[in-house]
């Protein structure tokens, strides 16, 4: 609840990472390496999906409702007779697009504000830190739910599906960026005291250049690791929002909605719940393992 607690200062004691040997250390962690390949595969499948598997995810075949896998439908169909493989690919694409937007905002807004707050200090720091604290006041997803619920219908009416996607990403970023700002601010505060920054200043390097050219590289590892670890949370949160009816609107596919819809037909066709759940869990696990591996590779001392 206080301004910046001990978890942030612990992160701040991380020295500027040695970039050399980063890949070697990462590859040493077999689980992280395997996750990286699986993750790349999932991303490629989701993005190239429409090219490889050209089935309309919204086409309803009323003669094949809740069908089990067959030659025509490799993963079966849902309760409205839609192809499950096509819908999972489309749903994963939505998850990944939301993740990309959220992390863009998380790094673009959260890390930038954290860097500015830490380097400038004083009033600027106070203002940024208080705004972050205000958002921290809401437990979990509550504020994201509120924002998505209140602005959702109007945004969909005016801007359509893309607008809705951006709103979902924006409301999820509201939950992510304060933590990123807190981490980056704490490490910036620590780096600001380093001799090399003093040296740069003493030979007349300007504030902007010190901030972006000398401190940012030292914080970059932390930013990448936090953003990667945040991805797993964002994937789950996006699914929760669509499960509550706040995400991508029907008939467009999203993993959360597929689970919500199929759960009513669990007794007759459990596979239709299992497949989207498994796809989502896989995505979450893969990103958690990559994040863990990256953290250990960037900073070998921060075990656990």
């Amino acid at each position, binding site marked *: *609840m206080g301004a910046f607690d001990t978890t942030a200062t612990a992160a701040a004691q991380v020295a500027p990472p040695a970039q050399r040997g980063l890949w070697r250390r990462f590859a040493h962690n077999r689980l992280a390496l395997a996750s990286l390949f699986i993750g790349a595969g999932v991303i490629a499948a989701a993005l190239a999906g429409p090219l490889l598997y050209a089935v309309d995810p919204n086409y309803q075949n009323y003669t094949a409702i809740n069908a089990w896998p067959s030659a025509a439908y490799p993963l079966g169909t849902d309760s409205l007779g839609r192809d499950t493989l096509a819908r999972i690919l489309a749903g994963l694409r939505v998850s990944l697009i939301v993740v990309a937007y959220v992390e863009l905002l998380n790094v673009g807004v959260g890390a930038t504000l954290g860097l500015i707050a830490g380097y400038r200090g004083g009033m600027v720091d106070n203002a940024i830190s208080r705004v972050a604290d205000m958002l921290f*006041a809401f437990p979990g997803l509550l504020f994201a739910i*509120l924002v998505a619920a209140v602005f959702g219908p109007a945004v969909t009416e005016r801007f359509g599906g893309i607008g809705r996607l951006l709103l979902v990403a924006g409301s999820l970023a509201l939950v992510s960026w304060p933590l990123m700002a807190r981490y980056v601010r704490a490490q910036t505060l620590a780096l600001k005291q380093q001799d090399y920054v003093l040296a740069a200043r003493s030979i007349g390097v300007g504030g902007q250049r010190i901030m972006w050219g000398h401190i940012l590289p030292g914080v970059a590892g932390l930013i990448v690791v936090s953003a990667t670890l945040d991805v797993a949370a964002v994937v789950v949160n996006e699914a929760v929002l669509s*499960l509550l009816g706040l995400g991508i609107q029907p008939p467009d596919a999203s993993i959360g909605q597929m689970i919500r819809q199929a759960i009513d037909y669990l007794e007759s066709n459990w596979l239709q719940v299992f497949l989207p759940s498994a796809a989502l869990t896989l995505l979450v696990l893969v990103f958690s393992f990559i994040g863990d591996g990256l953290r250990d590779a960037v900073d070998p001392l921060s075990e656990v």
Partner: protein
Amino acid sequence: MGGVIGRRLLGLVFVIFSITFLTFIVGYLAPGDPILVLMGPRRDPQLYASLQHQYGLDLPWYHQYFNYLGGLLHGDLGMSYRFQGRSVNDILANGIGVSIALGAMALAASLLIGVPTGIIAALRQNSWLDRSSMIFMLALFSIPTFVMIPILRAANYFVLFRNGLPALPPAGWGTPAHWVMPVAVLAAVTMGYLARLTRSSMLDTLHQDYIRTARAKGLRRRQVVGVHALRNALLPIVTVIGPSLAFLVTGSFVVESLFAIPGIGYLGVQAIAQRDYPVIQGTTVLLAVTVVLMNLIADILYSVLDPRIQAEG
């Protein structure tokens, strides 16, 4: 210790101001005219003006905020936009008891199962029991809530019901049989987290010097563990109760709506579908403030239990 509590109270004022202010601003900026929604097809300027006045929407925003805050201080969450003449309190009142019951049972279950599991695992470090229970707890912690629900429901249906065994009702709220699955799902993540935290905290404590001293002076293992280790090992548990509550709150939205349990989360989701903003705002403020207050209690409890905290406070 008074200083710590004073600072926490000051922080509490800021946090509650943040919650109410941001919630109010989101509602204030909400697109669409609630009065027009309320009036339906009727177009009567006089009625419009009187309704606008009744809801206080003819005032400037800061005045509206002070009215909102004033109402909140009296425990009044405002008026519904969807049901004319019904207050938000009235709508949410039915759900509070149910949500508290669900949340309390889930928290109790995760503490009563998670903490002892962690202690036993630590006492038998690296045994078969330790490893298997920790893998199980890691699974509980990692599987998202809405994936856990179909797993449990499928197990209930295919293993119990199909074989003619007594099965649990798949949804609803009423008899204790209805409680089992929602409580299990809601408790799962917190339980997994608590078990793993308890284990590592217990292991940490068992390696402390004073434990070696206690053992060296010839105390029985039971006494060393029960009296010396346990008390200190359990301290960190108090600090994670706050974050756990935050999780329970978000989880209750999913659990209540998928099990059709008439709690606050379910009412909130219904209000989302009906675009009844004051009810959504009321749900947010109510849940957020509850979590904040529970956090405060946990903080105070912690500083009472662990006198070393004073030095930092």
